């Protein structure tokens, strides 16, 4: 890039990054503001964090989010990995259809999935709650897992698997000793992705959560709806820190692998 074009480029990038970050920065800053209603800076305080800590509905919601996130990640990663490997390895009639099936949730509007599940659970008279929430989260996570694992499988050297079989290992042993370790990083990545989308989901959860399963995003939704309070800022800041730590950690892990 020539010198002449560099300056506008940098300026433009700075502009976009500020669009992305200024709202978040202000959100964080105002979590320390000693005023409930006003945007005027009244002084520094940790009060909103203290208040957050005693807010049982938020803590409860965080617990639910983590629980659902954990189990949906474990189950969807297992199911997704299994099907990705199977689809990669075997050929059979109707494969194209299953392939298409796997992609449908990826491109479908979330609200349609939420509505369909709500109607379905209502029809078969299953009360909404943790169970239905978990089912929904697993359903929308599976395709993401499949995509990530697929990407890895595409660059896969099949000769290693074949060598293993030539040496007398059976399918299961080959999978356990060869395929699985090779897929390790991809499985970790897909699990992380599944966890993130589960933790972050608003729309599908909105329709399928029951009285005992208000997730953190749903809790935030009702808090935002019922008023602007610095407590939400404090909560957001904490969540940001957790996310950032997570990202940095994952990044470190990846670079070390390389």
């Amino acid at each position, binding site marked *: 890039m020539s010198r002449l074009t560099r300056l506008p480029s940098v300026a433009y990038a700075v502009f976009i990054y500020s669009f992305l970050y200024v709202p978040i920065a202000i959100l964080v800053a105002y979590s320390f503001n000693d005023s409930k209603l006003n945007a005027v800076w009244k002084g520094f305080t940790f009060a909103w964090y203290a208040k957050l800590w005693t807010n049982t509905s938020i803590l409860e919601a965080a617990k639910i989010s983590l629980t659902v996130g954990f*189990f949906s990640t474990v189950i969807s990663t*297992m199911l997704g990995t299994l099907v990705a490997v199977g689809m990669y390895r075997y050929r059979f009639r109707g494969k194209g259809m299953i392939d298409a099936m796997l992609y449908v949730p990826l491109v479908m509007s979330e609200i349609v999935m939420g509505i369909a599940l709500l109607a379905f659970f209502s029809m078969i008279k299953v009360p909404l*709650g943790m*169970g239905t929430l*978990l089912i929904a989260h697993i359903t929308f996570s599976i395709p993401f897992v499949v995509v990530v694992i697929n990407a890895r499988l595409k660059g896969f050297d099949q000769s290693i698997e074949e060598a293993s079989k030539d040496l007398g290992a059976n399918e299961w042993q080959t999978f*356990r000793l060869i395929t*699985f370790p090779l897929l390790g990083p991809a499985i970790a990545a897909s699990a992380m992705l599944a966890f993130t989308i589960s933790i972050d989901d608003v729309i599908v959860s909105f329709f399928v959560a*029951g009285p005992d399963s208000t997730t953190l995003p749903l809790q935030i939704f*009702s808090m935002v*709806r019922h008023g602007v309070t610095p407590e939400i800022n404090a909560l957001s800041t904490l969540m940001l820190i957790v996310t950032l730590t997570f990202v940095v950690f994952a990044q470190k892990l990846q670079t070390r692998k390389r």
Partner: protein
Amino acid sequence: MKARKGFRLILVLLILASFIMSGCGSEATTDSSDEKVLNVFNWAEYLPKKVIKDFEQETGIKVNYGTYSSNEEMFAKLNTGQGQYDLAVASLYYVDVLIKEGLVEEIDQGKIPNVKNIGEEFLGKDADPEDKYSVPYLWGEELIVMNTDLVDKKVTSIKDLLDPQFKNSLVILDDPRTVIGSALAVLGYSPNSTNEKEIEEAGKWLKKLKPNIKVFDSDNAKALLASGEVKGGIVYGAEASLAIRENKAIEKIYPKEFLSLWQDNFVIPKGAKHKENALKFIDYILRPEVSKEIVMDYPYANPNTEAVKLLPEDIRKEIDIPEEEAKRGTHMKDVGEATVIYDRIWAELKQ
């Protein structure tokens, strides 16, 4: 070696997960009436958290508390997932619908001794003449509010809200039934009209009002008012009182042409799994000192006459609806088949 370890871990997780799953399943299907859980469905901003906490502490029953912002939302949820909630709160005209649709259980008032604290005039309402299905919670009015710092005009009626000076600066309840009802009343019709032409006319009138509406909001009007985000609007009485606590320039106005009153009752949805706990909860709420505490935080008018006696003077003034106003007030009624028309008119207005 390493890989093997990882594999075992996954296997363990799988087994664990299947356990949890089956746990969820059985919890969902068995009728566990002596389980110490209660699923409550109530309006947002209607019951202080502390009251729930105290109840949990006293009884050891865990309360899952869900909220909604309109009767319609409540009804839709009860319709979709039967057996999800053990206790809900509905305005009288929806109590009527719920009974007609067979969506509520009978309530044995013998198990709620504190019903004696409820004033005569709040029982035996048309919606539930024998008090077989519902127990009063709170009641109130819908009135006009104006921030006198931002508005000079003397507003006395709903019609006055059409004034172009209110352009994009009013908050209106996000409630199809009462808002269309008010518009009907402004036009001189019954607020419970089932005549399609009249309802459509009311819709047209509301369309004239729409440029002045900044927000449709039923549960956070107080913050919008207090912060000056809106100049005024039509809100619930308690929301007005709460806004006044924060901002003294706000004024309550009883609209000249029509005053809408409402009363919210507890109901037990059909298929409730923790019915006994629900009865305990109702009885707890009806204790004068508990009911008083609720009104301290959410100053709605209280049918619990014993609780009102305990209230400090200033709060009693806040929740007071002057007698002559209350007398001319009207309760909304179920409109039956016409509900579909109301829904349509509302959708048109929102567009």
